């Protein structure tokens, strides 16, 4: 045991020495500002997580790696969409790597767990990555946890109306069984059912499931369309299996179902997604000038040949927004994080964030309001 443990305290002595140096120099201008970046590089959202990292890096690159005269140092962490793994990775970034600001995590359940952890670290500012569960910032929020992306329920605005306009009167819901799809389905149903639509069946499937044949078998004949709120590998698996089993019902997509990280899986399934209605905070065909500039910038930095997508995915975009918020906030306080980051947090809560799809401001529950976009493939 003693031989095995030696590296720990060698490490910890080095760590302690580094910490002393950091504390001593933290107030001086020109020291790098450390930002922890957490996304899912493993598990069902691995592809989305990698693109989220690209989005966040893009925000750093646009500032040439500098903010208010301080260099930006990004330290990455990885999880696999499980809350306990996300908290362990966050704890490492905050307590071991001593980051000043934390950006992440990606998935809904993780966001809630990291928010709980944020309460134990009141001197660090946490900014959400891609997590879109409503409960993250609505139920017992942490004062130092911010979110600049809108959440799952808000993203679905407009889809119910669009579905009815298409003549879909009865819709079956197939969604993953965790916080983010709950918000999405809630957002869809509150609008759709108010306007007279019916949701006769809801199938909740486990996150990271591989076999959807039993769900496909329960799809009733008399529904007009399916609302599919699955992400990453789950969406690809479901769509492939649904098509192979001869399914032909029109599909309505959740915000992360019809996203670049799903569309770019190899196979012909992507062709059958053409024409699918979905709703989300971004639309690839949206033609605002700022959006176009953002997409062009993304393409330039991450060409398809280097593993990027033809157009940024939802994860790239929300990570970009949140990282941009973190950096804009730093700019507003001129890189001053002293006094336990109180000034920085004030700046964040008052900030009007300029994003490629419009201005975002927080509404007092650390929950942003921004116009959603419906889109069509």
């Amino acid at each position: 045991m003693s031989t095995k443990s030696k590296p720990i305290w060698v490490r910890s002595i080095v760590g302690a020495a580094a910490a002393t140096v950091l504390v001593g120099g933290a107030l001086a201008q020109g020291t790098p500002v450390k930002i922890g970046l957490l996304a899912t590089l493993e598990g069902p959202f691995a592809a989305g997580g990698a693109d989220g990292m690209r989005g966040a890096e893009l925000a750093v690159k646009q500032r040439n790696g500098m903010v208010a005269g301080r260099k930006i140092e990004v330290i990455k962490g990885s999880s696999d969409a499980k809350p306990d793994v996300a908290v362990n990775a966050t704890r490492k970034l905050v307590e071991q790597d001593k980051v000043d600001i934390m950006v992440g995590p990606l998935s809904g359940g993780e966001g809630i767990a990291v928010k709980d952890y944020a309460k134990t670290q009141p001197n660090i500012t946490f900014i959400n990555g891609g997590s879109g569960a409503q409960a993250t910032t609505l139920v017992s929020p942490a004062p130092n946890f911010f979110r600049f992306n809108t959440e799952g329920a808000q993203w679905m605005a407009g889809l119910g109306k669009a579905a009815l306009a298409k003549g879909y009167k009865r819709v079956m819901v197939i969604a993953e069984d965790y916080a983010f799809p709950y918000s999405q389905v809630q957002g869809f149903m509150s609008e759709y059912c108010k306007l007279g639509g019916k949701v006769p069946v809801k199938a909740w499937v486990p996150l990271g499931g591989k076999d959807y044949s039993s769900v496909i078998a329960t799809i009733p004949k008399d529904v007009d369309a399916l609302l599919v709120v699955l992400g990453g590998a789950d969406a690809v698996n479901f769509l492939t299996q649904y098509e192979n089993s001869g399914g032909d019902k029109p599909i309505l997509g959740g915000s992360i179902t019809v996203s670049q990280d799903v569309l770019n899986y190899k196979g012909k399934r992507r062709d059958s997604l053409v024409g699918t209605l979905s709703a989300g905070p971004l639309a690839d065909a949206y033609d605002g000038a700022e959006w176009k500039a953002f997409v062009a910038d993304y393409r330039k930095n991450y060409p398809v040949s280097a593993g990027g997508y033809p157009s940024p995915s939802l994860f790239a975009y929300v990570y970009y927004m949140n990282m941009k918020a973190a950096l804009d906030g730093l700019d507003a306080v001129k890189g001053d994080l002293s006094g336990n980051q109180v000034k920085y947090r004030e700046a964040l809560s008052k900030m009007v964030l300029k994003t490629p799809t419009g201005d975002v401001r927080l509404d007092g529950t650390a929950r942003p309001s921004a116009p959603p976009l419906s889109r069509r493939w």
Partner: protein
Amino acid sequence: MSAAQWRRAMKSGESSAPGRHHVLPAHAGAATATSPAHIPVYGVQGNSDAAGWFAVLQRSLQARHILVALFVLLFPLLATPFITFQVGAQSLILGMIALSLGFLAGYGGMVSLAQMTVAGIAGYAMAVLGTSSATEISLGWPWWIAVAFALLIAVACSALIGWLSVRTEGIYTIMITLAIGVAFYYLVLQNYSVFNGFQGLRELKPPTLLGIGWREPIPFYFLSLACALAGYFLVRYVVRAPFGIALQGIRDNPRRMGALGYSVVAHRVAAYALSGLIAAVGGILLAWYNALITPGSVGMSWMINILVIAVLGGVKHPIGAFVGAIVFVLLQTFAIDLIDRERFNLVIGTVFLAIVLFSPDGLLGLWAKLRSRFSPKQAISSPLRRQL
């Protein structure tokens, strides 16, 4: 691998097993009874109890034991709170759960993948009976009643799992315990009325006792250390007790032990219950460590991680579980710093593969091999050497 081959492989690995415990020097309390050859000339019997114990201690203690004891006690003072909590406490907790598997596998010859499930049952039971964020589910009992009942429920479940699986052997035991574990995972994933589904139960905190917040890094480390040491010495004690000797006999030849009048099933089920107790304590600590329990904590990946930890360290000795856990936690935490962030799982996998490839007995086996290579004289009397 066919069943017959499997059985042969299990047997050949254990052929040298009987008798090896007699020469382990670290725990001599029972050695006086089992290995008369090792009773030293200065008599123990004539002295008072305290002096006898002191003599036993003096005889069995070696420099390395004192070093390890000093190290684990002083560790939190040397390390940062992060290392103390995330590496130290987490290793001890995972080590305990792996220890419960090591006990079953090493001394009972039963490889159960459901040890994480037992730990999860304890964690869930505590969350449901005690307090958590889901006030409509948790019953809000005082923590000590909740913990006691959680242990009881987990031990009962473990005995039940044992009851179901003891009639199988080798790979079939693995299959049946895997099935039980996966069934429990899907139960907690899809049940909302008791287990709260994917979200699980959050805000599980150890109580504040004697003015100490037990989830602060250093108190939590010592809490874990105390439980881990208790589990370790419990296993060390039990394997020398008549029950443990009979269990090892059953491992090596169940038919002969049956013919001698020992109840094979009862001994095996009792072994499951005992391992369940150790796993349950680990499970409660793990729930406190994470401050939450979710289906992810009892999923397939964790069931296999526990097996990986046990195999990494080596199941031939209880300390192997903790050695394996330290390596596992260090890799999980720091592999991401060593290599390209997108590929760090490759490092973890390569290290595990290398260890198992070069030493089927895990790190303990590797250590024994190195010792026998570089100091031949010592190796002859080394207990680990004889295990190989």
